[in-house]
């Protein structure tokens, strides 16, 4: 205990007297101005490395823009940006032996809105930075979806040529997956997990900041591909070889963007793992961790193990193109299907990366809003681990029609079907938690229940797709599009909305507007179903996915789908309005509006810069609702005593 007091004392002193600041000029100070010129500088360095090599080798033309954009624009300039904005400052000082500013956390906390645009090492600030950034890319990705739904409203070609259409579809999926769903969960967890563990911050706050700042690089790269000659990458988010190595230059923006998003993802996951393993408050055993923490623990394991595979697959596809290697081309001994095996070895676990944190969020909300302990806590945690293990043995179910070895189909089908078991355990346990509870039907709970029902539909269509004969008929049709949107929108996005509403009072200290929240839910729920449910039918009766033009018989339903998709887009405007106005002038929320037991609700809203004046002592399970006198944690000094009655 004394050591924590010391630590706390140190923080306090350091924060009160931030070490002697060597005031640097505007150009040299970390921030956007330095980022601007260092990015430009690095771009020119990268460019002249390419030009010099080409000149020495005597290759013509010396100024070959594709290679310059690849090396200078997608590697050197982003490193320059990260350097300029200030993510490396501390490490560079330390490496070069210059006096580092003592760890005073001068970059902790956000006191005005402009602080969110600076490098910040506070997990709560980074969490909000993640959420706002990913929401921006959600809007961009949604806008692209509106564009191609406009094209699909009628058969025939109206607005775009087929290459542009393919580009819109591909960029939509890529933005949504890599710079919205995956990092939005990282943002929510960034905010909540250290607080839930009773830790003052993540284990590596500077690495945490670096992880965040790599993310916009990926998003900008995906979006910027529309400016490339030949248009955006147009091979779907799956980007199958060998098509991907023959497409116009926009494809490279995907290959490299994925590297930045993946690096960000891996760094964050390592950070979560170390934080969860080493920084739990005294008494916080693994079996007392909230299920959100369990979910992020398993997700982080998935990320760390799987993500290097997609990085490799994208590098190899790019090498096939720029260096004329033959990793995935049929000539010179390449292995075309190898791409799909490596890609799905990441991208199937990625499906769980995009849903397990959502499971965690829903477990928190359903327990708190039903005023009951979560049903079967240990089995809930074990089923997460079950999904983690099984998740690595099912990747080839994406390849039932791909022409892989025949014998692989049946084992992959069985393991895929078996994943329904731990997933079913979770669904049934949530339902049992509801039973006989005291159900508060507010916005987070509506989204939680909406999630359970939509995810069940997505899970059941997943049963059809796991059965190989049905999958052979349904794969690459709109049935797949329907299925992935039921699990990724009805699943993941609903949980993200639920989580944002749930922790909004903790993040901002203010309460969102309940009426607008409910309106948002119902509009989303109805528009979502009208948009995606008909896709099951058009797919099964014969409409393939990723086509700009289709048979006239599907015209009427596609018009309905397009109109509903615009309504779905409009529902996001209600959410944005609610969040922005409530953030600015919503009613003060109090520290624990939900009367929740987990530790983040036992401190003020928003929490103090270092979360706790004194490290909490954990004394029981996180969901002991209805147990007389039960407590999850004891806080002293600055903790709010009235928090739990």
């Amino acid at each position, binding site marked *: 205990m004394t050591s924590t007091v010391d630590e706390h004392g140190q923080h306090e002193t350091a924060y009160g007297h931030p070490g002697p600041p060597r005031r640097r000029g505007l150009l040299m100070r970390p921030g956007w101005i330095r980022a601007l010129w260092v990015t430009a500088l690095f771009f020119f360095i990268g460019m002249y490395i390419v030009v010099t090599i080409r000149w020495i080798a005597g290759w013509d033309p010396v100024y070959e823009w594709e290679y310059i954009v690849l090396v200078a624009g997608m590697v050197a300039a982003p490193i320059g940006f990260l350097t300029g904005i200030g993510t490396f400052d501390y490490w560079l000082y330390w490496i070069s032996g210059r006096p580092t500013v003592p760890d005073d956390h001068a970059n902790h906390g956000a006191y005005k809105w402009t602080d969110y645009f600076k490098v910040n090492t506070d997990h709560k600030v980074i969490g909000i930075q993640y959420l706002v950034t990913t929401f921006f890319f959600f809007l961009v990705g949604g806008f692209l979806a509106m564009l191609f739904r406009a094209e699909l409203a009628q058969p025939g*070609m109206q607005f775009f040529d*087929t*290459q542009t259409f*393919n580009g819109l579809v591909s960029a939509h999926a890529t933005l949504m997956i890599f710079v919205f769903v995956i990092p939005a969960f990282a943002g929510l967890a960034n905010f909540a997990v250290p607080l839930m563990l009773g830790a003052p911050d993540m284990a590596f706050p500077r690495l945490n900041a670096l992880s965040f700042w790599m993310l916009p690089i990926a998003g900008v790269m995906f979006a910027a591909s529309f400016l490339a000659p030949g248009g955006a990458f*147009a091979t779907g988010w799956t980007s*199958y070889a060998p*098509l991907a190595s*023959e497409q*116009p230059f926009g494809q490279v923006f995907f290959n490299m963007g994925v590297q930045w998003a993946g690096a960000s993802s891996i760094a964050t996951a390592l950070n979560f793992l170390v934080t969860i393993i080493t920084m739990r408050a005294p008494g916080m055993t693994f079996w007392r961790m909230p299920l959100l923490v369990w979910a992020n623990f398993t997700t982080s394991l998935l990320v760390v193990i799987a993500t290097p595979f997609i990085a490799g697959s994208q590098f190899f596809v790019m090498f096939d193109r720029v260096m004329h290697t033959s990793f995935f081309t*049929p000539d010179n001994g*390449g292995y*075309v299907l190898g791409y799909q095996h490596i890609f799905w070895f990441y991208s199937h676990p990625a499906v769980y990366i995009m849903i397990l944190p959502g499971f965690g969020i829903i477990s928190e909300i359903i327990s708190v809003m*039903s*005023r*009951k302990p979560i*049903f*079967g*806590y240990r*089995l809930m945690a074990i089923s997460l681990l079950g999904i983690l293990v099984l998740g690595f043995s099912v990747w080839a179910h994406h390849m039932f*029609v*791909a*022409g892989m070895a*025949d014998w692989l189909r049946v084992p992959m*089908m*069985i393991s895929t*079907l078996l994943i*329904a078991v731990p997933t079913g355990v979770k*669904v049934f*346990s949530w*339902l*049992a938690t*509801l*039973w*006989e*509870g*005291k*159900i*508060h*039907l*507010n916005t987070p709970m509506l989204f939680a229940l909406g999630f*359970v*029902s939509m995810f069940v539909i997505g899970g*059941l269509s997943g*049963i*059809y797709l*796991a059965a*190989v*004969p*049905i999958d052979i*008929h349904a794969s*690459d049709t709109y049935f797949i599009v329907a299925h992935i949107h039921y699990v990724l929108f009805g699943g993941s996005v609903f949980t993200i909305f639920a989580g944002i509403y749930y922790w909004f009072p903790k993040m901002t200290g203010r309460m969102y507007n309940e009426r607008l929240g409910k309106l948002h839910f119902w509009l989303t729920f109805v528009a979502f179903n009208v948009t995606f449910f008909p896709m099951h039918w058009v797919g*099964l*009766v*014969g409409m*393939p996915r990723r*086509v700009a*033009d289709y*048979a006239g018989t599907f015209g009427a339903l596609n018009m309905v789908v397009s109109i509903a998709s615009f309504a779905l887009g409009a529902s996001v405007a209600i959410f944005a309005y609610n969040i922005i106005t409530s953030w600015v002038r919503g009613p003060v929320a109090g520290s624990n509006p939900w009367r929740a037991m987990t530790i983040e609700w036992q401190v003020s809203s928003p929490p103090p810069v270092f979360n706790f004046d004194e490290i909490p002592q954990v004394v029981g399970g996180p969901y002991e609702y*209805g*147990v007389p006198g039960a407590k999850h944690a004891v806080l002293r000094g600055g903790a709010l005593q009235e928090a739990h009655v």
Partner: protein
Amino acid sequence: MIRRAAVVKMVVVAAIAALIATLVAVLIDWLPDSASEEMDRITFVYWFATIICIGIFALVVAVIVEAVWAFRVQPDDDTDGPPIHGHTGLEVAWTVVPAILVIAIGVVSAVVLSKNADAGSNPLTIKVFAQQFAWRFDYAGGVQSDELVMPVHRSVRFEMDSPDVIHSLWIPEMGQKQDVVPGTVQKIVITPTRTGRFRLICTELCGLGHSTMRAPVRVLEQPAFDKWLEKQSSARGGSAGGGSAGGGGAQVGKKTFASAGCGGCHAFEPAGTDAEIGPSLDNLAADAEKAGKPLPDYIRESIVNPNAYVVPSYKSGVMPTTFGETLKPEELDGLVVFLSGKGAE
């Protein structure tokens, strides 16, 4: 007691949900009218899974609806529910029962899968050649066609190859689907059960012209099929004989135009195509002038090395660059004659 009443109501809600789900499943034709034995078996697996899924769906809906109905409280209610932490019997049940159900689906699927891969003792073999963005079907005896013609009630074994990227063969009414992977020969079996016209669709994104990569399919009675095959093979013999003689070049060209799938992307009036992916071939003379080449040389270069000159407002790198290797010399010569408009009549 609230508990028993709630369970009874829940069973009623479950029955209603199951009824609605069953009506949705039965009243809407979710699958196309089957036209193959393989699709018949797929349809069987589909209904097997559907029955199980309706049960699970109804259960989940009933619990959610009934829980919200019976246990909802006002926002100012600050009491807690009963501290139930779990129930071992229930937890074992909802682990074991779903496991049994999904394994049953798995066993049925595995049996159907092996039956659907069995071509029987007397299959007809058709070689499929898929390239951006056209299909070609090769029959025994050297017959080539851009329309897929199959006899009814006989298993057809497809052997498929692609020179460029991955494509995928699917005829919705016949269920079976298989990617065509360059550098490998992929196999699939289809046994048509009724005559008629269908459409073959490429279902793997293969580039710019993916959504136009379709082919007509015809299923005939065996005698009609034999007659068709014979006619095709005699037509081929005739044109091969006349290929060297002047006027025949255009005939070879016309056939090649169809079999190589040029019409998938290009409009060309003499061939009756109107696609808009690539430049119209009705303006070849003007384009050749712009490129500064004599017309036959320009046509030949544009087929073999399409990126050498690209008509303004079209994109480079779209047309396959493999035609120089895949077309036979006489086919290439024929195309040049056909496209330059000489002897088209």
